[in-house]
């Protein structure tokens, strides 16, 4: 089976690890070979969390610079920071709602302009799907469901070798019962929104 390499970057607390977990379980369910690795630089202390997910026949669990087929960023400046993982053929999905790092507040860095981030990514990669996942999560009933919105959006791209069904089923069985409904709603909203972006 062809190898598909997915990088997810997020800020600690955004639920990135749950979304990779859901993808992993969904792949297991669908019989798609999967391996992943995660680096959480003290995630609970607000650092960057990066997951690499490799679908298909490969033994490696990490993804080298320039080798991601799809990059998903839960925070726009983090998406930009992870651009080194992309090549000109990479599809990028990003949340547009910024969560500026603390260094900006204490004057040790300037947060990049959101439009600039988008145009840079557009210019350098195959396609950018940009959406306000935070707003969609709120619409689904839980701002913390950003991870589910982005799961929906990345599924819509058709790059990852999984359809919506096994992912929805996994959300149903593997996420906390009290949140299943909002999680599914968030997933669907992300899925639909990304479709609009694809058409554009």
């Amino acid at each position: 089976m062809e190898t598909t390499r997915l990088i997810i970057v997020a800020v600690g607390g955004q639920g990135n690890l749950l979304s990779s977990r859901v993808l992993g379980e969904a792949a297991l369910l669908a019989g798609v070979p999967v391996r992943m690795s995660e680096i959480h630089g003290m995630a609970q202390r607000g650092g960057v969390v990066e997951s690499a997910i490799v679908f298909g026949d490969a033994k490696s669990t990490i993804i080298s610079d320039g080798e991601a087929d799809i990059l998903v960023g839960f925070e726009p400046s983090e998406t930009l920071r992870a651009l080194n993982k992309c090549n000109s053929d990479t599809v990028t999905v990003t949340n547009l709602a910024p969560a500026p790092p603390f260094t900006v507040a204490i004057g040790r860095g300037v947060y990049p302009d959101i439009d600039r981030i988008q145009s840079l990514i557009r210019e350098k990669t195959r396609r950018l799907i940009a959406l306000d996942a935070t707003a969609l999560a709120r619409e689904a009933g839980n701002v913390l469901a950003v991870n589910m919105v982005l799961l929906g959006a990345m599924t819509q791209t058709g790059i990852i070798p999984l359809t919506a069904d096994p992912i929805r089923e996994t959300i149903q069985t593997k996420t906390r019962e009290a949140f299943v409904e909002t999680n599914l709603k968030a997933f669907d909203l992300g899925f639909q929104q990304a479709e609009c972006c694809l058409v554009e």
Partner: protein
Amino acid sequence: MHKLLTDKPGHKLLLLGNEAIARGAVEAGAAFATTYPGTPSSEISLNLFQISKETDLYFEYSTNEKVALEVAAAAANAGVRTFCMMKHVGLNVAADPLMTLAYVGVTAGMVILTADDPFMFSSQNEQDNRYYGKLSGLPILEPSSVEEAKEMMAEAFALSERLKEPVIFRTTTRINHSTAPVVLGGIQKPKPKGHFTKDPMNYVTVPAVSRKLHARLLERWDQALALAETSPYNFTEGKGKFGVICNGVSFGYVSDAIKDLNADDRIKVLRIGFSHPLPGKLITDFIRDCDKVLIVEEGEPYLEEGVKAFAQEAGLTLPIKGKAKELFSRLYELDPATVRERIARYFGLDYTPRQPVDLGNVPEVPQRPPNLCAGCSHRATYYAVKKAAEGLDTVYPTDIGCYTLGFLPPLSMGDFLICMGSSVSTACGFAQATDQKVIAFIGDSTFFHSGITGLVNAVFNNHNFTLVILDNGTTAMTGHQPHPGVDMTRQNMEGYGRVSIEDVVRGVGVPHITVIQPFKVKKSIEAVREALEYKGVSVIISREICMLYAKGLKELNPRPFYISDKCKNHRDCIQEIACPAFFLEGERVRIDPTACVGCAVCAQICPENAILPLKKEG
């Protein structure tokens, strides 16, 4: 029931490497487990701790790795299958018992896991612990994948029993923190109690005994070598005149590279999973009909040195390379693209690497370093000490834990750190060798781990410094594990004792002891000032529960604050304490009410008293 106790052989579960390792120990019927938590090994012990509540497994968080290994050594010599796990630098702490335990051996299976951390994702160095195999004479097993980690763990116990020696099980972060589907095996019932048979002439390592035991260890080393020569963990794949020898995660990168390069009819691979003693005959046979050999390993040239020595003995002069400027570095970790490119280049294969996008015009993205949590008591303690020490020429030796992050600006409280416990002993040295005011910081768990001996030294040699013990009631950084000072009833766990830090400090004979509550800012500054004036050893215990731990225990009732109109935009709050709950809205400082827990430290330092509690609605 704990997911790792699922008794369905043949069933597939998606497991983190560390979960797979814990499951491997469960399948092998490990009945006794000890550890001191340390990333990247921490989830192994966390899972075994949970499992121990449901099964006959005995599990303990020991005070440090040396203690963990000694406790385990006794159990394994009482006939109980024992698992002792730690991070790589933990094995330095446990190196003393390790070296002589190798002489003594074990009667039941014992596995010592060392989790190495190439690239230092969460460590102070990236030492390559395969050398502990050479140093101690003990066998080493190294898995290449999550699935293999589980399989190998069960085998490691059997191997240990066969050789009557502990087996070193070496992983790296990319095994511990990778996830893959794993097929479950059957679970052996643990045998939690054994019996110790006296045999002082083999167990009491006085010189006359040890001389005999060392000879026995060498005999066992020979047996281990024979097993390594035929071990299924040392295998070859592919065919051709080019040879690659590799271990651990490198094997995955090598396999993928050969596939991507379409070179499996030209390159053959020898994967070494039983890596000490190195199987010399197997290696010599492998390289004998190669034109050229490349060694792919992270870290030090451990395999490379071995392979070159075997080649020399066999009179083989083919090129053998590994660590070299144009090939592999001893620094950091490997990655698939690097391995692919080096293999192609070394063997002269066609390959066009994928071009990463050009980052030339991408603006610098502001750093996002980890930060102490909003409401972390350490921030308050650092602020109090900083204020109390204003005007003094200070040195701040620090230690390992969340509080290490205090070395970053704007707190900038942390000047020197080498290992667990070093804050106290280096404070002794700085105080003696300089006329600066030395103020050292150590966490509660680290104090128990290895701070106490340094403190005894300070009292005996009458050094002049202040030690601040940051007592937040848990081992926060690695995931809130208990330590000897923790009140276990808070977690609904019975049957534990509790050691008071204050009693220890008093018992050691520290002449000046102060206890502060860091969220009372003014009082704390005054108390610290007083302690700093003392000539001799003074200890400040700063006591306040870890905010995140309290949250987990549902003991936290957040009362967020906000910045009222009285704010004159001095920004003392943001500049001096840098709590991540602050953010800028235009030019105004705001507090994120979902992040603020209401520690009220900023409210106490605001010169305008502009920071006020948010009224609860309704």
